[in-house]
């Protein structure tokens, strides 16, 4: 596993796309910061550091797309064939599991990088923050942000290995991590509920708070919201992330290692 992780780290760091993506994140962070500094937007303040406009909005999409790039056919599976032909059955399972682990580690690094840029951006913007959370709360919030990204990242890896289609994987990564697939699913379920004689939106009201996209949105509101139980589900998003996202990520990793590795590679 360590050898495979080192190999993937080498591969990613020597590719151009990761630096292009890093530059894009930097631009998206600093552009609003500079805009705030140079324009007369009036006296603006942020309530909290983790709830600032320079925090990690949309990071789930970026991490899922990165996982798609890491695992897509054109970039990886052809090369993987060369490695897999020298590995035994058990080592092949490890190879598939490692893709999930590597994508999760890459997501963690990306989140930390984006947050560090966010802090710089905050300093550049000169916009004051009313309440700066304690370090432990910021760290826990970052952990929760990673946790809500994890299912999208691992499901993207699974889709890449099952479909071996770059377009499908990229589409899945973007749509799923943006919450559009879940929103569509909810609408479909609501319609079925209505057709069955139920009340419109009743189902989505009860299921919605437990969907990863809803949990991700709640975590995105900042550390205070992440650890507060004052919401529709009466349970802190951090707990819901542990209950929903962690098992989902573990199950998808297991499915990738056990199912995808059993298929013919080529």
């Amino acid at each position: 596993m360590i050898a495979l992780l080192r190999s993937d780290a080498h591969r990613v760091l020597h590719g151009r796309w990761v630096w292009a993506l890093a530059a894009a994140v930097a631009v998206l962070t600093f552009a609003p910061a500079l805009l705030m500094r140079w324009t007369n937007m009036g006296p603006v303040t942020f309530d909290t550091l983790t709830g600032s406009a320079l925090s990690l909005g949309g990071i789930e999409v970026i991490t899922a797309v990165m996982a798609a790039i890491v695992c897509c056919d054109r970039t990886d599976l052809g090369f993987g064939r060369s490695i897999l032909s020298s590995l035994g059955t058990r080592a092949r399972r490890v190879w598939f599991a490692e893709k999930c682990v590597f994508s999760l580690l890459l997501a963690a690094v990306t989140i930390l990088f984006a947050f560090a840029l966010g802090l710089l951006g905050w300093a550049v913007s000169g916009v004051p923050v009313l309440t700066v959370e304690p370090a432990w709360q910021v760290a826990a919030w970052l952990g929760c942000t990673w946790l809500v990204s994890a299912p999208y990242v691992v499901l993207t890896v699974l889709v890449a290995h099952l479909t071996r289609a770059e377009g499908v994987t990229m589409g899945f990564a973007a749509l799923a991590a943006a919450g559009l697939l879940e929103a569509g699913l909810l609408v479909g379920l609501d319609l079925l509920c209505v057709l069955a004689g139920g009340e419109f939106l009743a189902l989505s009201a009860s299921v919605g708070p437990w969907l990863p996209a809803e949990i991700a949105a709640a975590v995105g509101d900042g550390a205070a919201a992440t650890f507060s139980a004052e919401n529709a589900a009466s349970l802190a998003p951090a707990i819901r992330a542990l209950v929903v996202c962690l098992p989902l990520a573990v199950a998808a990793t297991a499915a990738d290692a056990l199912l995808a590795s059993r298929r013919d590679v080529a």
Partner: protein
Amino acid sequence: MNVIETHGLTKRYRRKLAVDSLDMTVAAGDIYGFVGKNGSGKSTTMKMVCGLARPTSGEVVLFGDPENGGATPQGFSRIGALIESPGVLASLTARDNLVAKALALGMTHAGDVADDLLALVGLDPRDRRRVKAYSLGMRQRLGLALALVGAPDLLLLDEPFNGLDPEATRAMRLALVRLNHERGVTIMISSHVLDQLDRVATRFGVISDGRLTAEFTDAELHERCGSSVRVRLASPERGLALLEQALPQATFRAEPDGALVVAGVALEELSAACFQAGIEVRELSQQERDIEEYFVELMGVQRGQAPLHGKKDGGER
């Protein structure tokens, strides 16, 4: 020791039977030329040998190790494969591709390994171009270098001469022979470029419709494709019976136009035998059999016909 043994190896994709009860043997030190038409099952067989595809039935025994009834993890770690298109990371340099694979296999000094292999296949380790800028021939050479990471004992190469210009083909051929002679690497090559295959292979297997139709050595191939005499007789049936009696050492093959091709006998000897037996001869000529033609003939063997093996395995049909 046999490096590869397949027993009743079969692969079915839904309705299509890609490989049908294939029994193949590749001995240590062989350069095994695997010949067959497009879609005859060459690539599928190679994928099953290196574990990239699961057999529907049958088994693969690698390096003579029947443990677990077939290919073991230890066996796979001794294989290097270049199957179908070279699986390269197009956005990286050739060196980075090799370093990535060496790291994945847990090798130390991955950079040195990459430099050595690039030099071996004739690519420049200092070339900073991304692989996407490479020609097909350069990609093929990089694919070979990737297959060689980890110093495998068995190399599986699927159409390695594809897209190579004559100079690159020659370089590839020499590299393979060098690997076989100097490092003792057993090589299995599938190729349509029969004249190249003929120059490197020491043993051949011919596959048609997923079945192995013939297996023979290089010497046997040249014996079969060596000079023969073509004779057209006024009365072919009677003439053949008399000649078989007069020339027991010769082999006879009937051509579609009614002529006989006689191998293992000189033209003068055949002429004398015809004269002595009172056979009326209408045409008599020396001919060389084309190797490509011979392979095409073997590849045309249909499902249901018995395989043709070399002398070791029972002689010509």
